[in-house]
């Protein structure tokens, strides 16, 4: 240690999710290019705010120039970020914004509401061409109403044309097309169990929104076991390579791809820049964050919804 290179921190939600693993790889690559010393931290589980607070404390004590963080608790992390900023650090939120958003110097993120809205619009177009009445199952993350979960869920419903009520709350809609909500913890097992139970509750479900692609894969297994996989459309968000493969195989109808490597690279570059000459990054015009983009991937394109196919997706996927 002690190479004299400026220290840059990366604090992810967990260290087991492929999304963050990818993000870390991207950051490491950029750090090597920029000649900075990357220190990585992670929460023990999703939602583990305290580990992130400790990570910031450690970074302050290391004298880091700045750090990138995917906050586990958007609000609760803010006081720690304030302390870091007092120590003249550049703080960048990655993937998940903090609350209030201007507590950080910049946010490099997927517009999760937009990601949800894209698959919602696609599904709406598909169902209106098919002429069938939709029965929707909503497979969310967990009961905590975290921002990513809320934004994707509400974005999807908005895109599909459902009155979403309070856009900050999941489950306050009373559209009869929604057959039910359940939580998946964002993994295959949760996805399968939730799908199984919702199918028991309402066997006529034909459209499934999933918080991410592992949950989608689990939901597909449940549908397959019930013999309904052909009649049901699954939409998801992420753009991981297994997810894109599943689009190609017809398991997932459409998914919104996000770009974690880009997020991490932009973030590391911004801090390296700041370390060099003190310039701070600028937000995307009209948004309170730097939108790293989102791309709808489907092999069943619908009129009026811009999309790329799974071949393009394979080349640009992560993980």
């Amino acid at each position: 240690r002690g190479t004299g290179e400026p220290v840059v921190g990366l604090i992810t939600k967990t260290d087991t999710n492929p999304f963050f693993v990818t993000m870390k790889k991207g950051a490491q690559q950029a750090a090597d290019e920029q000649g900075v010393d990357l220190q990585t931290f992670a929460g023990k589980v999703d939602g583990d705010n305290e580990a992130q607070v400790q990570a910031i404390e450690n970074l302050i004590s290391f004298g880091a120039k700045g750090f990138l963080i995917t906050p586990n608790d958007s609000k609760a992390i803010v006081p720690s970020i304030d302390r870091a900023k007092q120590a003249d650090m550049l703080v960048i939120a990655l993937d998940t914004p903090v609350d209030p958003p201007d507590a950080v110097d910049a946010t490099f993120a997927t517009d999760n509401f937009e990601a949800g809205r894209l698959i919602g619009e696609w599904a709406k177009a598909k169902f209106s061409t098919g002429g069938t009445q939709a029965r929707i199952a909503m497979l969310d993350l967990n009961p905590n109403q975290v921002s990513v979960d809320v934004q994707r869920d509400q974005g999807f419903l908005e895109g599909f044309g459902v009155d979403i009520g309070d856009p900050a709350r999941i489950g306050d809609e009373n559209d009869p097309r929604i057959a039910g909500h359940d939580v998946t913890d964002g993994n295959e097992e949760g996805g399968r169990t939730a799908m199984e139970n919702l199918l028991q509750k309402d066997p006529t479900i034909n459209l499934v929104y999933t918080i991410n692609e592992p949950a989608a894969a689990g939901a597909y297994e449940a549908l397959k076991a019930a013999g309904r996989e052909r009649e049901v459309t699954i939409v998801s968000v992420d753009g991981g390579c297994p997810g894109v493969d599943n689009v190609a195989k017809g398991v997932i109808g459409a998914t919104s791809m996000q770009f974690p490597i880009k997020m991490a690279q932009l973030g590391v570059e911004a801090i390296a820049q700041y370390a060099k000459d003190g310039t701070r990054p600028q937000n995307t015009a009209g948004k309170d964050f730097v939108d790293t983009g989102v791309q709808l991937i489907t092999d069943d394109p619908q009129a009026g919804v811009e999309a790329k196919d799974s071949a393009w997706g394979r080349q640009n996927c992560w993980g």
Partner: protein
Amino acid sequence: MATTTADFETRRHDSFGLRVQHLLHGNPVLGPLAVLVVAIIAFSIVNVRFFSAANLSLVLLQVTVIATLALGQTLIILTAGIDLSAGAIAVFSSILMALFCTDAGMPAPIALLLGFACGTAMGALNGLLVTRIKLPPFIVTLGTLTIFFSLNAVVSNSETVRGADMPGLMTWTGQSIPIGDFRLSYGSIIMLLLFGFFAYALSSTAWGKHVYATGDDVEAARLAGIRTGRVLFSVYTTAGLLYAIAGWILIGRLASASPNVGTEYNLDSITAVVLGGTSLFGGRGGVIGTLIGALIVGVFRNGLQLAGVEVVWQGFAIGLLVLIAVSIDQWIRKVKT
């Protein structure tokens, strides 16, 4: 009973109530069973769809992995231990066997057996630490839990291995035989056979008696000439194998091997064991109770969703129901003495 007039006489004079007492006395699983039956009846009333063959087969399917884990957990808890690494071993084993037959290109049976061997070895590691260095099981398995989870993340690169990329044997446990509307998966069949096997081994073999004696009072068992170290080691090793089998069943269930599942497995499996009436202090209980305990949890989870209870309130309801279930069991036990 082998004997005697005395038995017979007391019995003859018994009131009906006392006979029920004796029945319960001889069959400690009746408590959990009563809870299960009540739960099933209650949920059937709330939602008629609950008590359909299709839904019940779903409940069985959903508890299969947890029940298999809880079987290993029961063995360990019977020896007054506890295993926090159960979920980690299962998930890590499933990742290993998946990687063996995909990345490493081994034939499926070999990959499977090697996966079992790895799970067994992980269990054996726990056993060694417990018996040789004489560390408390809680801390041993807490340590190996984090170790296995890290290794798991490193080895798998946190990436899911798809079932489609594996030979059919790996996902075979997920297939099922339809019996009318009831769909019995091979995984569930394996699980039930394992339960039968261990119910027998615990009640009718010398090994079973030694497990109970060791859990009851390890010092007394040692003085009575039981090699308690060997018994404990055999239990942890066996549990490791059972977890690996649970890992195999898990691959079938998810049609993939995912490194990110299973965070709740330990608590869930311990819950099943305790709901099934096995004492955390060792020496009392059995595996059939555990099976019922696992089913109770599965029935609650599924039943609440079908009853349309909101997700935030489901946790509340499950907590409450667990407490009520154990209270009922406790009440039934009280009648006994």
